[in-house]
Each structure stands twice: as structure tokens, then as C-alpha cells.
């Protein structure tokens, strides 16, 4: 399952949205997902993807923005883990 598919599942469950509404280019604000909901979503993403989302402010406008952000964190943290394992 891709990051996008898993994200759609979380959003559909938490916000009672139909999966077909959750296209990659869909804007979060137009889906009724405000800044507080994004904060909650990032918390759930941490659990679902076993990653740590840093406290930095990031601009997440569309669903695809989240996918890109999460994929980058997964890659980053996988590299960090590999370095830890080697050292």
C-alpha cells in the first residue's frame, strides 16, 4: 500500500470523507481539514508510519503535500536508522 493510499484511509476514517474526494491535488482547507486537524493528522501519521514528525512549521496545502512530506521523513529516518545500525 502506498503512502497516499494509507493517508486516504486515515483521512476517510477520521473525517468521514469519501475516498473519491481525497484526490492528490485536493486542498485540505476545502475538505474541511483546518490547521488543528492537520496537527491531529500528523500525530496519527506518526503512529501509522512509525516516524517522528518534527515540530517545525511546514506548509501543507494539498493531500499530495502530505504524501511528499511523509515520504521524505520516512526516507530521512530510514537513513538515520541505517547509520545508527552501522556505528
Amino acid at each position: 500500500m502506498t503512502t497516499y493510499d494509507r493517508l486516504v484511509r486515515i483521512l476517510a476514517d477520521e473525517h468521514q470523507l469519501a475516498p473519491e474526494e481525497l484526490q492528490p491535488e485536493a486542498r485540505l482547507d476545502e475538505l474541511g481539514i483546518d490547521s488543528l486537524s492537520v496537527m491531529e493528522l500528523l500525530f496519527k501519521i506518526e503512529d501509522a508510519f512509525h516516524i517522528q514528525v518534527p515540530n517545525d512549521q511546514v506548509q501543507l496545502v494539498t493531500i499530495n503535500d502530505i504524501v511528499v512530506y511523509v515520504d521524505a521523513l520516512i526516507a530521512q529516518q530510514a537513513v538515520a536508522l541505517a547509520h545508527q545500525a552501522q556505528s
Partner: protein
Amino acid sequence: MRRVALTGIGVISPLGNTVAALLGSLAAARSGVCRLEGGDYGRLANPIGAPAAGEPVGVADPAKLRMMDRATRFALDASRQAMAQAELPLAGLDPARVGVFIGTGMGGAQSTDDGYRILYAQQSDRIKPFSVLLSMNNAAASWIGLEYGFTGPNLTFTTACSSSAVAIGEAALRIKSGAVDVMLAGGTEAPLSLGPMKAWEAMRTIATEDAHDPAASCKPFAKNRTGIILGEGAAVLVLEEWESALARDAHILAEITGYGLATDVSHLTHPSVQGQARAMQLALASASCMAASIDYINAHGTGTPANDPVETAAIKQVFGHRAYHIPVSSTKSMHGHLLGAAGALEFAIAVLAMNADLVPPTANLQQSDPACDLDYVPNHARADATLRTVMSNSFAFGGTSVALIGQRAC
């Protein structure tokens, strides 16, 4: 001075989640107190409490619900009921002239408790992102303002067990002063989780379980009283400027005429006759009301050894010999102590009782304490009473003492 009409009441309570259900329970002297089962309740010395009669309704959006503590959900449902009864024409209201005053003693205590469980018991650092929003004391008032779009004053009062009586009194003053035209005022509390209950247990104020009937564990004014029973719920009232209410032909449940606010500085927790009496005297004075006109008093009547004889003496000091002829009841015997929501629920009960010509009883009163010698309406409600003016007392740890007076609309 402008006058204040009460045109809507909403309740979530251990005696019912509608005003009709609440009145029915009061008339039947039915208790909402019970043994609390499951969860952590086994860790309590006396696992007894008065849970709400059912779950609150009215907020459908799960994303919003996740941001609301139980206390906030109670307050929103009570507001919805009160607004429905008042039939306020929202389209005709200037939202800047509508305010929300809510009292709560412990705010989102369950959410705070949940956070501590994660942090300390589970040794996890993953505190939920909405923890602050769930537990902040002003959450209930804020959500009510948000839901209805009221942009007038939005305040939260925390004066322990008199919080919501203060909220109602202060709301009435705002209308009288001309600052606003409509107020939603009341209180909410949801203290039935382990942390708050353990804290109250540690104060040695919780009643021991009645050997025969847990529902009868709270015994205000009785010789064998042993303390309070914690209850949960909310009560919210719609208050309006009198002439506007008349102009729109609203059904007026009462006029709020009296509000007495005094501070008892004798001790942090032990009440004094002077402090309690002064709140009642100030309420009578503000209502331009003779002591002789009070037909019913809903007492603070906690069922603690400390409060009940002091409140009895305070009532006698204010009303003189007539004190013996005024029915005085503690409905906490049935719905428990709702802490910050107690004042609003009990004033609502006094007004509902006045409209129903019913004197609510003090349940579980088999033998009065000799120091408590008034007419406490023991064990059975009295129907066919004629109540024109009612008083509700609310006293608090910290000393903020309040009496409210409601009069039949005329």
C-alpha cells in the same frame, strides 16, 4: 434598571437529560446516585457517584467531538436544549449583544486525567495534540460561542462549587447594565474519573456507601450524613432583557431578580454563618424583596458534617422565625454534587419547581441532625404548592458564596 427574563433551560443531569425527565425524577424522589462499576473505580474507597442519565447529543462532527472534553459536550447539549426552549429568533439577534458565561470547577478534568495517564502511568511522551484544547477551563463557553456565533462577552468562572451560580448572577448583571441583550449562562462538570474522584476522596468529604441502598448514600441534613456524592452534568439558561422577551411574546419561566455575592473569609473550606447569611441578604436586597416573600429555598445542602448546620443557622439568621415555615430542600441528595455545575442545575430546579407548583424533596432524610431543624421536605415531594419566589444557595471552597432569586413572571 433593565429586568432579566429566563426563557430557556437545558440540562444534562443524573436525574434526566431533559427538563421534563429531571422534574419527573424530582417529583418521584428518584435518586441518580449509584455504584460505579468497571474501569478504575475499584480503586476508590467508596465507588459511588451520580453519572449523567445518558450521553450528551447534538454535536455530530467527529472531528469537533475529538476536541471536546465530556464537560464541553454536556454544556453544548444543555445549550442546545435551552435555545430550543427559548425559541430565540437567531436571525433577529445582533451576535455582538449576546454573551456566554459558564461556570466550571474542574474544566476538562477527564482529559487532564487521560493526559497524565499517558505521561506518568504509561511512561509515554505521546500526549494527544488536543490536550490543551480539551482540558482548558474556558473550552465549554468557547464552544458555545463558536457554535452559535455569539461575539459578545464570553467568560468562564471558576469559584469551585459556586462557579455556575456566579455565571448566572454575573450574566443577569450584564443584561441589567445594558451591555448585552441575551446571555447563555450556566455551568458544566464531568468529575467522575479516577484523578478528580481520588482528590475528593483524599479531602475526606465523600459519603460512605449506604449499607442497604447505594442510591441513598447522600443524606443532607440527616443525623447520619457522611458527606457528598460527586455528580456530573450541566445546566444552561437563556436570559433575555425583559422588554425584548415580552415583545417577541416569549414564554418567560422566571424573572431573575436577586443575586447576592459575598466572600466568606473565615476559612478556606469551613463555611461560616455570617458568610452564607450575607449572600442571602445581598440577594434579597438586590431583588428589593422581603424575606417573607421567599417560598422555597434550594439549599446548598452538601450532606457534609460542616455545611448543613451552618447553612441552617444562616437561613435562620436571615429569615428569623419564618425560616421554620419555608420549605428548604437539598436536591443533591438525588443528583449528587455537580461542583461547578451545581449552582446552575439547582437554580434551574428551583425555577422548574416554581413553574410546576412542586416542592422538591430532600431524599434519604430519616432523622434530622438536631442542629438542622428546618422543614427540609423529607423524602417526598409536595405537589400543589404555590411558589412565587424561590432562592437557590451555592457556597464554595475558597469562600465565594452566592444566592440567586427567581420570581414567577408577572
